């Protein structure tokens, strides 16, 4: 009796040889694709961020509370910074996840490093998102204007 061997790309591969359809699904492929798509967008977002914040006008000397307030008064920069925060954090977290998987050999070590990584990433993403959306350019505490605030003339 001769066993029939299907061509590799026929899609009729025995289940034990199939790369997809395991418990992990195609998460790794999606992660791989995400790195490339987010990478292209991040090149634009970060080069724009560096140009506007460091190269234009007085450069780094212009950065203070008023500079941030002026930028976030414009929804354009809120969306820009929000997209940069999420994409950069997810891109970086996935990169460090790959490095942990490559170098941490013990199962327990890998697990703990990834728990710390995911906790830190979640904290930073949530914090950054809240800061962008709850930012107040004109903070007042107990009826008193905080020094250094950025209040447009009434």
């Amino acid at each position: 009796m001769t066993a029939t061997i299907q061509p590799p790309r026929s899609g009729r591969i025995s289940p034990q040889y199939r790369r997809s359809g395991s418990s992990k699904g195609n998460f790794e492929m999606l992660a791989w694709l995400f790195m490339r798509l987010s990478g292209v967008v991040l090149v634009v977002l970060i080069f724009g961020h560096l140009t506007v914040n460091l190269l234009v006008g007085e450069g780094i000397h212009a950065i203070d509370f008023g500079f941030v307030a002026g930028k976030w008064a414009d929804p354009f920069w809120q969306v820009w910074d929000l997209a940069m925060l999420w994409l950069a954090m997810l891109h970086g977290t996935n990169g460090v996840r790959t490095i942990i998987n490559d170098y941490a050999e013990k199962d327990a070590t890998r697990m703990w490093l990834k728990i710390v990584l995911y906790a830190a990433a979640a904290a930073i993403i949530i914090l950054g998102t809240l800061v962008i959306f709850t930012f107040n350019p004109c903070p007042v505490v107990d009826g008193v204007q905080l020094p250094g605030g950025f209040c447009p003339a009434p």
Partner: protein
Amino acid sequence: MPTKPAGTLYRGREGMWSWVGHRVTGVVIFFFLLVHVLDTSLVRVSPEAYTAVIGAYKNPLMALGETGLVAAIVFHAFNGLRIIAVDFWKKGAKYQRQMLWTVLALWVVVMVGFSIRHLSLALGGH
């Protein structure tokens, strides 16, 4: 006696070293990003707290650090685009070596321009 294998796409030479460079710069950028979100979050504490901490970025030593960070970002960005080309362009793997030298040449050009502008602003009389 076994002989040393020749360089391949993955072992030794441009392919491997660009991979090493991509990992190292990636980790450096990631840790800076964590700190950078935290320092920016001080705008939510008070204007004075933010302006005080951001002032730490404005000393000459930090100007060199920022230039190093941007060097890491620019390499990671250009080499990332090269990786995309290797993966998606039909001739990407064939020309990966030439593309790395292109990445490095562009990196030098961008970094010379950035360093002149940023260091003269950061270290200049203000």
